[in-house]
């Protein structure tokens, strides 16, 4: 079911024009893209919507990328996050990866690189989801087996 759907991307960046244009381009690359301007909005969004990969700018006013990352991972651990860093925030990005982000990219970035990272992240998520599903199936089978035996 999920296997055949396009990856659902959430793009979070305070720079609106960058965000919208990038969203349009990603849509052109067969992604399902939503774009939002702040961490708070993003958190609200993922409560109600299915998202595979969040592309998150680190430097944002209000709640910054790293904080948002933490909250996202708390709310929906299965979501993969790709960080976008400005300049001197590479260390922060690495820090972010320790906190569970998939990878980071230096901004401005080539669209192809970004696509590659998103695909990578998506593949990881898909694989994990698959394992999760298999595990669920197994546990359901176990329960069934127990029920049958008795």
């Amino acid at each position, binding site marked *: 079911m999920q296997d055949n759907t396009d990856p659902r991307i959430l793009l979070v960046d305070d720079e609106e024009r960058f965000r919208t244009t990038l969203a349009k381009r990603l849509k052109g690359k067969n992604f399902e893209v939503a774009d939002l301007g702040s961490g708070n909005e993003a958190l609200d969004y993922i409560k109600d919507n299915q998202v595979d990969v969040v592309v998150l700018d680190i430097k944002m006013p209000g709640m910054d990328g790293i904080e948002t990352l933490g909250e996202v991972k708390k709310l929906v651990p299965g979501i993969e996050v790709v960080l976008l860093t400005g300049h*001197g925030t590479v260390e922060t990005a690495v820090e972010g990866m320790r906190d569970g982000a998939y990878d980071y990219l230096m901004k*401005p970035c080539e669209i192809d690189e970004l696509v590659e990272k998103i695909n990578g992240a998506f593949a990881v998520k898909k694989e994990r989801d698959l394992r999760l599903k298999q595990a669920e199936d197994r546990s359901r089978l176990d329960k069934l087996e127990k029920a049958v035996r008795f």
Partner: protein
Amino acid sequence: MGMHMKRKERAASVYSIRLRWHIIISYCLAAVISLALIAGIIYFEYRSSVNERATARLVSVVMEHKGTIENFLFELANTMRMVTLLEDFDNLRQQDVLEQVYAVLEKEYDFAFEDLGVLDLDGNHLAYVGPYDLMDRNYIQAEWFQDVLEKEMVISNVFLGFRQAPHFIIAVKQTNGQDTWILRATVNAVKFASLVEYVRFGRTGFAYIVSHDGYYQTRSRDGYRVMDHVAPDHLDLEFFEGVNFWELKQDQRNFFRAKTWIKDNDWLLVVEQDVDDIYGELYLLRQNALIFFALGGILLLVLTLMTMKLLLRKVKLIDAEKELLDEQLIQSHKLASIGQLSAGIAHEINNPLAIIGEESGWMQDILKRENMQGIPEHDELTDSLREINQQAGRCRKITHKLLSFSRKMDATIREVDMNQLMDEVAALREREAGLSSIKFIRDYDQDLPMIHTDSSQVRQVLFNLINNAMDAINKNGEISLSTKKNKDKSITVTISDTGMGIPQENLTRIFDPFFTTKEPGKGTGLGLSICHGIIEKLGGTIFVASKVGEGTTFTIRLPLEPSVTVADD
């Protein structure tokens, strides 16, 4: 060698000259004052000792003289007394006997006796031997005759008498039975004077005799003759005991005078000697001392100047060091602020740049769609957008470099063999360098200690510098790589080339970001400023020295243990 250090000429060298004079003057003053003090003390000590010696000598001369003169006079007088005792009055009044006696006396006393006469108590000659015809002279009125009647024996003052020549009389009164008579002799005053004058000492030492009533008995030194009267205020004729001695100035002459009364306080014996004569030795000594002290002074001066030179060289060295440190500080401050500024700009440009990239990318995406393939000028648009993309990419590279330059680094500190690291980097370019006839000369310190530093960053610096060196040479030249252990827990790495050199005006800006002499597009001008940043962050320093036409030397000093300063953005 002949390299010109990147330093401004000191404007404050005025302070050095002022300091120099200050020190020289105080040194010399101290030296001269102490020398003068020593010289003065020695001089006055010596002078007083010379003075004492001169005093003692004059006194002894006076005493000796007094003895000689009195001996002479009393010997003559005693001889005559002996004559009156040995010969009978009756014998002596006979002319031939007196002549015999006179002959003996004349011979014995070297013609001191001019004549000899026997007188009765009325002053008439009973017998006479001598060159003058004095047989009929009567002496009853003569002063000495009056005296001898009272005193038995008398030695008169010098006088001219009948003969008009200076002489004095020795007379002895003798009584044999009822006869009382007088033996009289004339003593040649010139002969006597020679006895006094004979005793000369020094160059100007002179003795003379003055009678108690102020007549010269011998010649004076200043031209007075016998029997002349002493000039007023010239000589004090007050009576005193013993020897008088003092220094005085008369007729523009400085001299010492010693005097004593002789011949029963009748005659005053005066001895004089010029001050110059007495101090002659001292003056000679003073002259030698002056030369000695002058030489000493010159020596001191030379020593002072030499010390000064040494001191000033030290001061200058310290100054230069301080200046270098100041410059380093300024340089790193400048670079830090330029870095901050450029990072800020890069950051601000980054977002617009990202948007430009995305927009043009979006347009490219659109142009790739099926329905856009047929539009006019499709290829031109595509080409133009590709160029926009490319240029945005170029900008991105620059901003990324800039940002990496200013951002704090995670240095991974490991033990590094600098010789090996240098060789590794050199090996990367050596073959290519060989094609351009560029030779690498290695001068490694074999006892170089391992240092703790970030090898990959230092490698980047070395690579950059070797590349620069090769660019500077272009063809035919040498690149010298050397390592050296310093005394202060650090090592020095130098990379010298024999290239074109860097003009003075560029040397000060060489580490500035964006400073490049390469054509636009060929270099960003960030290489050396990144090198500078890396070395600083590793706790080291980097210098450049260069001379146009001779070459350039980069000197890197790295500490054995890094003091990584983690600068915040």
